[in-house]
């Protein structure tokens, strides 16, 4: 890690080290950021923005930013629905990282991680999380946080966090992303305020507020299944409590009790996300946290669409897990996938190799030949042909 990056990381961690920011309405609270507002050059806020501009520059060229035009337009459109007046001040980056997270820097850089997109069920749920992050931005929570750090000289927390972050050292920029995420380790008051504002923004934009709590609930379920619950990054910066979910549920029920038809946006959401879902699930499988991934997969299955891809991914999970009886389960899942038109052609290849392993040569040959018949110019055709020859 370069000196600049180290300094930058530590500065971010330092910023993240405070545990109490000033909530709106309390003495010393800042006014909301105005549309088009930039801090005066000689202010501490300008310094904060400058640092974030550098981080944004690194993010832009990191190779992690998803370039899919449709998805980018779609997410940007949601942000602009939620905060129309601030639309031109906000730059959205969809970041290819298989964890549930979103964050917003004071200079208008919004990060939306693909792990969040994979886990959301519809537009209203995504809008709630984005609204929550917009809440931190509009209320200038980062600047409040910075001022609190200076006021309290919370150096012990700084050193503790610096030590913890060093544990991520070998991963490199993911540590920066985490550190950047950690900047939003706001106080409970600020979190509550962002929750309220996120809720308000989504309701104003016409989304069904009853969806707000369900994405939180799903994440708690996932956390319980995870190999290492502490690695649920969003929860490391956003305190998760059953009480919070309950509050959102009650608010949602109250707001939704007026009988007005509100936007859930399931179809629009799926249209934007489905083309990328196989890749996002592949990223998820690479985590090798199979119990957690199973929870995610079960949730994605509930969408009821793209089932060929989903059964294939279920087969991949069993194959990669490789436990007792998993080969048979994987075969069953691949076979199920083939009942649907969207099953990837790789299903035949995976099935062929598993049939080889369980000693069913006839089925293995059949599957591998089918793979080559559908994709005669497959990139690995020579390898597959070599396998077929070996079987003879």
């Amino acid at each position, binding site marked *: *890690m370069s000196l600049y990056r180290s300094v930058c990381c530590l500065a971010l961690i330092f910023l993240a080290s405070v545990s109490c920011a000033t909530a709106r309405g309390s003495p010393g609270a800042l006014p909301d950021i105005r549309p088009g507002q930039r801090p005066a050059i000689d202010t501490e806020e300008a310094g904060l923005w400058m640092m974030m501009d550098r981080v944004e520059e690194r993010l832009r*060229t*990191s*190779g*992690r930013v998803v370039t899919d035009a449709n998805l980018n337009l779609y997410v940007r459109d949601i942000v602009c629905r939620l905060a129309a007046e601030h639309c031109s001040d906000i730059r959205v980056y969809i970041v*290819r990282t298989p964890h549930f997270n979103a964050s917003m820097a004071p200079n208008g850089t919004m990060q939306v991680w693909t792990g969040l997109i994979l886990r959301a069920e519809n537009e209203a749920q995504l809008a709630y999380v984005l609204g929550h992050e917009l809440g931190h931005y509009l209320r200038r929570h980062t600047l409040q946080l910075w001022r609190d750090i200076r006021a309290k000289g919370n150096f012990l927390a700084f050193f503790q966090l610096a030590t913890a972050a*060093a*544990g991520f*050292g*070998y*991963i*490199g*920029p*993911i540590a920066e992303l985490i550190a950047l995420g950690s900047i939003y380790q706001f106080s409970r008051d600020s979190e509550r305020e962002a929750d309220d504002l996120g809720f308000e923004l989504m309701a104003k934009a016409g989304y069904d507020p009853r969806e707000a709590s369900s994405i939180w609930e799903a994440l708690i379920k996932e956390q319980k299944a995870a*190999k*290492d619950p502490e690695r649920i990054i969003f929860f490391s910066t956003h305190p998760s409590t059953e009480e919070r979910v309950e509050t959102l549920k009650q608010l949602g029920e109250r707001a939704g009790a007026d009988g007005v038809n509100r936007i859930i946006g399931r179809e629009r959401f799926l249209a934007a996300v489905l083309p990328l879902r196989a890749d996002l699930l592949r*990223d998820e499988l*690479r*985590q*090798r*946290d199979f119990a957690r991934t199973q929870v995610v997969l079960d949730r994605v299955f509930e969408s009821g669409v793209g089932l060929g891809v989903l059964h294939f991914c279920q087969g991949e999970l069993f194959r*990669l897990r*490789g436990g007792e009886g998993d080969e048979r389960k994987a075969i069953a899942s691949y076979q199920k996938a083939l009942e649907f038109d969207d099953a990837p052609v790789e299903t035949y*290849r995976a099935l062929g*190799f598993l049939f*080889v*392993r369980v000693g069913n040569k006839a089925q293995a040959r059949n599957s591998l030949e089918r793979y080559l018949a559908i994709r005669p110019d497959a*990139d*690995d055709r*020579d*390898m597959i042909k*070599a*396998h077929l020859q070996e079987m003879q």
Partner: protein
Amino acid sequence: MKRRVTPFALPLFLCGCAAYSLVEAKRTAIGDLYTVDPQISWSSTSQGKTDTWTVDGPFLQAVHFVKGLEDGEVLFKGGDEEKRPKFKKHMTPSEIMEFVVDSLSAIGAQDVQTVNLRPERFGDVPGFRFEMIFTSNEGLEKQGLVIGTIMKEQLHLIIYAGTRAHYYPKHKEHVERMIQSISLKGK
């Protein structure tokens, strides 16, 4: 959390400060299994089951010799190994390619794309080969080739990777000739 990093992870994504020694341009043993003709002089470092050779620095280009990975072992030591892919002795070449790609992704490589998985002799035993491109953590485009075989249930790989612009092509021909020169010991 463990923070020991192999020299293999370092050259791809970080800058390392391991101790290097000279590999002269004469036939050199890679572990106990085979020898190669290095074609040119390289700087070499070694940790665990991986030897790493480079000319211009491991960040720019490097050849990694993975010597006999056993069932259940990870490609990159250190960090959170629990979540890394593990080699299984029954893996097919397709699964080994997936193992390499997922291992690279786990240490931060982006958008690893592989092409042309095909059979290729590893010395005089059957093996496989594929090429790949990926983006480093810093957004730098990298290119690589992988050749490997499983012998006595152990995985042997030669991975050559470098920046797509200049440093990978610079020594690719040397690496190709080195691969052609693989001679298994005792044969």
